[in-house]
């Protein structure tokens, strides 16, 4: 496997790969998201308890799920940096953190907007909401550490350590609705049981989930491309990529 992975360790090769994948992910993300969200907003029936406010779920649930998935991917990259010192996976941390932070912010904001008419309050300090807020702080901390050192390798390592330690928050977020009494409702879909949601509402949600996944990958790739260029600035291939002429010509 390592022999197969080796050429990817060359920044230019990774850049080309990201460049090739990006348009596919972007186009599919926009397509799937538009279908899913229009379906959810226009054609799905209103909820019998929550009325039309439940439609916020079509962005809230995907954002919340992928705020955690992106964190997991970032932590896996952090592990690789610390164990094998593969620098591109360190750059991945920088690329993924803001995307995860934005997804977390979306989950928190849309949750608050949904909570106001449903629970009668924007915010409660319960386990689910608080642990998700901590996730936002973790992302911010990882990003701050990444840039906190003059020596970018030191920053990368510090960010990686925080990212790894923060993984402990993921199961807390996930199980918070089971471990503690909370206002937050349980999961609408789980892997193990039949979904507790009608098919006419479920299909748009599944599409929105796929769309958010594709969009997250696209945004991380977009940022990863930038970070590779930034780290390799001054190399001939970078000048050629950025303004069409090699730098030592």
């Amino acid at each position, binding site marked *: 496997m390592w022999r197969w992975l080796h050429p990817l360790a060359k920044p230019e090769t990774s850049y080309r790969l990201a460049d090739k994948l990006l348009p596919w992910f972007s186009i599919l993300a926009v397509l799937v998201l538009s279908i899913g969200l229009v379906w959810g907003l226009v054609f799905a029936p209103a909820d019998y308890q929550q*009325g039309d406010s439940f439609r916020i779920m079509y*962005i809230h649930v995907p954002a919340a799920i992928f705020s955690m998935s992106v964190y997991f991917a970032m932590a896996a990259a952090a592990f690789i940096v610390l164990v094998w010192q593969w620098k591109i996976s360190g750059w991945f941390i920088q690329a993924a953190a803001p995307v995860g932070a*934005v997804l977390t912010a979306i989950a928190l904001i849309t949750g608050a*907007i949904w909570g106001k008419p449903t629970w009668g309050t924007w915010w409660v300090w319960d386990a689910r909401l608080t642990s998700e807020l901590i996730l936002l702080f973790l992302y911010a901390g990882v990003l701050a550490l990444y840039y906190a050192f003059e020596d970018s390798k030191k920053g990368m390592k510090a960010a990686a350590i925080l990212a790894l330690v923060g993984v402990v928050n993921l199961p807390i977020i996930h199980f918070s609705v089971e471990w503690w009494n909370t206002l937050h409702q349980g999961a609408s879909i789980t892997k193990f049981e039949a979904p507790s949601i009608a098919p006419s509402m479920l299909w748009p949600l599944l599409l929105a989930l796929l769309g958010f996944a594709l969009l997250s990958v696209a945004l991380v790739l977009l940022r990863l491309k*930038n970070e590779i260029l930034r780290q390799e600035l*001054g190399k001939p291939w970078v*000048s050629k990529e950025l303004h069409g*002429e090699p*730098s030592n010509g």
Partner: protein
Amino acid sequence: MDKLLQWLHMGGYGVYVWSAFFVTFLLLAGLAIHAVWVRKGLAQQSERLQQRRSRLKRRQQSSKPQE
């Protein structure tokens, strides 16, 4: 037209639903726009670096024959 207004009204939840979708769109678009902006900055930085390098090279070349 009535149907459209009724849909926008969202059974009284219109403000909540649309503001949630609007904020989401704004944040995601912000990420993409920021990335484009960063790339532009990198291109400028790279160009400046190259100009400095070629100036240095010219100076070295013009000083050599006199030695």
